[in-house]
């Protein structure tokens, strides 16, 4: 069983509320869920949809073909009716749309009229529609009713009861007006507890679970979700969340808080990151630990604000003047986003460097289900020097002391006894004071960059190989294309020796002593890189870092993510 539900309509019609509630209901029932949002950059009007795929096996990508279309406006019917399977359904309200459709797929439900009759208010049409979808699937109303109780807790018992009655009316209407529904229903899944989380929430939670206490940002889609998530947790966990006046301020604030001893993070998207670049370099020379989330959307400039692309990889890799070490992670799932954000904090603090969590609108706003996130897997080491660590030392503290590893002691101003902490954006000596002589400059570059690099490289894990262990066909991907490539590998593995090689710890490249991944690629007949950009940035990086040239590429740069169908079609041209 593997159903796709698409809820379509105008912005402002409550697509997120309906789609979000249904996704939650499916996951609470024990189905695996994958959701994805497609919306325009406007608050009202236009055409948007919210897609929920649910299944009794793990799902991790979007499909083009739809089983149930819930159309909240006429436009949705016109645009999407051809995507609906022959045996699928289109739920709509002919009265509100002023148009009647014929055919076995169409189920006409008077959402608005029922809302007026039962709830005495047309705004409850969405509740009727949600109930109708559940009726079609015969899934019961218990979870929805709980959600309605939670949602309208503040609005009083009467509103709750009316919404529950509307949901029930929609449910019953669908059940009694759907002759083909008997054959359709969703088989009761195994009783399992699943958490439902999207990419930005997973990054936010990863930060929280890593001891991040300071987050500064300027709103920009699609990074805003991190700001919202952490702000909603500020009171409970004692965080400081600051909406900066611009991204320049945001990154400088995060650096200021980190210098003062607090785990700090900032987040933005491409345009905002352009403004942060100078600050990135400041983190580099001052050796201030910093975690940055760069949530990509298609550019250049303002580009497509609500769409998706993997177009900033080489920008983030090269951003910043001068040479300093950095790490880039690009998670493939919210689960990876959670653990990699934690690893980002660990490496940022351990090596006193900037570490990126790079992702995109698609992963950032897709919800996935997981059995659990294991807090036991998280790392938390406090690398900061506090008063107790310096007790009894007579030696004067030097912020940039030369060491074998290049990592100098990182003391907290005011929390390390009387030791003074001096940090500088100018080239400096061990004490942190400005210098211009060539010997000190050389030693500092060696300390800051060259000594740390090989140690950092050792921390990076090899790419993940999924599928055939000695494949003939390898699909190479990075970041958010994980899900769709993995599902494609599953589809083809019946008759092919096929595998996915997925990179989530993008830079620096891992060493090849544990897994010689280039050797594996050399032995394959066909290696294709799959990227959500126009120039194959990851393949370029791969060639620079390993010398291995990927000659075939499947690139998508229409601002949309790969779906199973379109990746399949592209791949068929090669197979």
């Amino acid at each position: 069983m593997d159903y796709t539900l698409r809820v379509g309509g105008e912005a402002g019609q409550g697509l997120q509320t309906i789609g979000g509630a249904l996704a939650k209901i499916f996951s609470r029932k024990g189905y695996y869920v994958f959701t994805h949002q497609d919306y325009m950059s406007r608050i009202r009007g236009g055409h948007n949809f919210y897609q929920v795929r649910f299944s009794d096996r793990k799902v991790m990508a979007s499909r083009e073909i739809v089983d149930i279309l819930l159309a909240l406006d006429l436009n949705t019917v016109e645009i999407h009716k051809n995507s609906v399977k022959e045996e699928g359904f289109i739920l709509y309200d002919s009265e509100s749309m002023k148009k009647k459709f014929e055919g076995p797929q169409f189920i006409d439900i008077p959402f608005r009229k029922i809302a007026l009759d039962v709830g005495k208010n047309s705004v409850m049409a969405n509740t009727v529609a949600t109930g109708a979808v559940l009726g079609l699937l015969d899934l019961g109303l218990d979870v929805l009713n709980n959600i309605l109780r939670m949602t309208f807790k503040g609005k009083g018992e009467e509103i709750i009861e009316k919404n529950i009655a509307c949901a029930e009316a929609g449910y019953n209407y669908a059940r009694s007006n759907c002759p083909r529904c008997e054959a359709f229903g969703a088989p009761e899944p195994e009783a399992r507890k699943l958490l439902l989380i999207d990419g930005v929430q997973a990054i936010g939670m990863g930060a929280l679970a890593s001891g991040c206490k300071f987050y500064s940002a300027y709103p920009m889609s699609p990074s805003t979700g991190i700001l919202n998530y952490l702000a909603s947790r500020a009171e409970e966990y004692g965080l400081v969340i600051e909406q900066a006046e611009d991204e320049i301020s945001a990154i400088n604030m995060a650096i200021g808080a980190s210098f003062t001893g607090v785990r700090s993070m900032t987040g933005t998207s491409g345009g905002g990151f352009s403004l942060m670049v100078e600050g990135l370099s400041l983190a580099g020379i001052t050796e201030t630990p910093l975690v940055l989330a760069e949530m990509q959307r298609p550019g250049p400039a303002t580009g497509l604000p609500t769409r998706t692309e993997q177009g900033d990889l080489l920008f983030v890799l090269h951003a910043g003047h001068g040479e300093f070490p950095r790490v880039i992670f690009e998670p493939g799932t919210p689960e990876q986003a959670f653990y990699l954000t934690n690893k980002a904090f660990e490496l940022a603090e351990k090596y006193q460097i900037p570490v990126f969590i790079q992702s995109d609108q698609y992963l950032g706003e897709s919800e996935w289900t997981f059995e659990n996130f294991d807090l036991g897997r998280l790392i938390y080491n406090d690398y900061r020097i506090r008063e107790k660590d310096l007790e009894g030392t007579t030696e004067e503290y030097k912020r940039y002391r030369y060491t074998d590893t290049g990592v100098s002691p990182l003391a907290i101003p005011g929390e390390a006894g009387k030791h003074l902490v001096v940090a500088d954006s100018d080239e400096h000596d061990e004490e942190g004071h400005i210098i211009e002589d060539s010997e000190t400059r050389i030693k500092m570059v060696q300390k800051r960059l060259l000594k740390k690099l090989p140690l950092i490289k050792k921390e990076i894990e090899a790419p993940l190989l999924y599928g055939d262990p000695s494949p003939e066909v390898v699909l190479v991907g990075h970041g958010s294309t994980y899900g769709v490539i993995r599902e494609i590998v599953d589809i083809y593995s019946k008759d092919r020796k096929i595998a996915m090689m997925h990179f989530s710890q993008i830079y620096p490249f891992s060493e090849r002593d544990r897994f010689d991944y280039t050797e594996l690629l050399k032995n394959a007949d066909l290696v294709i890189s799959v990227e959500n950009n126009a120039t194959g940035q990851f393949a370029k990086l791969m060639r620079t870092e390993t010398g291995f040239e990927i000659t075939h590429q499947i690139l998508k740069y229409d601002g949309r993510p790969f779906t199973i169908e379109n990746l399949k079609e592209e791949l068929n041209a090669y197979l």
Partner: protein
Amino acid sequence: MPTSEDYEGQVPAWCPGCGNFQILSTIKQALVELDIEPWEVLVVSGIGQAGKLPHYIKCHTFNGLHGRTLPVATAAKLANNSLHVIAVAGDGDCYAEGGNHFLHAIRRNPNISLFVHNNQIYGLTKGQASPTTAKGTHTPAQPFGYLAHPFNPLSLAISQDCSFVARGFAGDQEHLKELMKAAITHRGFSLIDILQPCVTFNKVNTFKWYRERVYKLEDDHDPYNQIKAFEKALEWGDRIPNGIFYKSDKETLEEMMPTIHETPLVRKKFSLEDIKHEIEKFY
């Protein structure tokens, strides 16, 4: 009780006779008289001649980017509100490159002190016009004379209800020291615009030029009167008023931020135990 020697930093690399020397020694003196120890102070700066000051004073310092002093200083104060945070900047640093941050620091009102070394010129980059340079001034970069109207930091700050607005003169250290002490002990964002002669690139606004013009605001000047303060801030020319123009006792950013009331952010312990139930919210 700290002494001036405790604050002795590196030997300054400024031109002999530069007004920055007086500002530096006055800051040290003010801190000593306030009985603040070097490890209780964080001086944040950007880039410029003024921006080098942190190296010449011994305390915690963060010498960051041109114009970015205030975001760093604000966040440092949020991270550890038990530190005295002083931001030092040049007029270019604070009013040009950092103009936006200046506006928003006033709005946020963190409890930090901002000392602007206003020499009406770019010193470190050798004499271009700054936002406070007089209209018509000829510089190597302004061949037709500077075409913009000078920025008035005091009237802007007062108009935005900045919580402490003062002007001092590097040539009157006694007075400047009292202003600095008042600024450091003031609760809220305090600005002192300091008239600082650049003996190398500004041949107009010299020590002598200022001595002939500056005067102290009278004792009956009421710093809580915003309109009067604004009026005074517009005075510039033959007579240039110095002193505390404006004060407003409003809540500081840290006072409004409930999560740092009991313990400074930096001292909060972290334990995974505390966030265990966070995951539950997603089921």
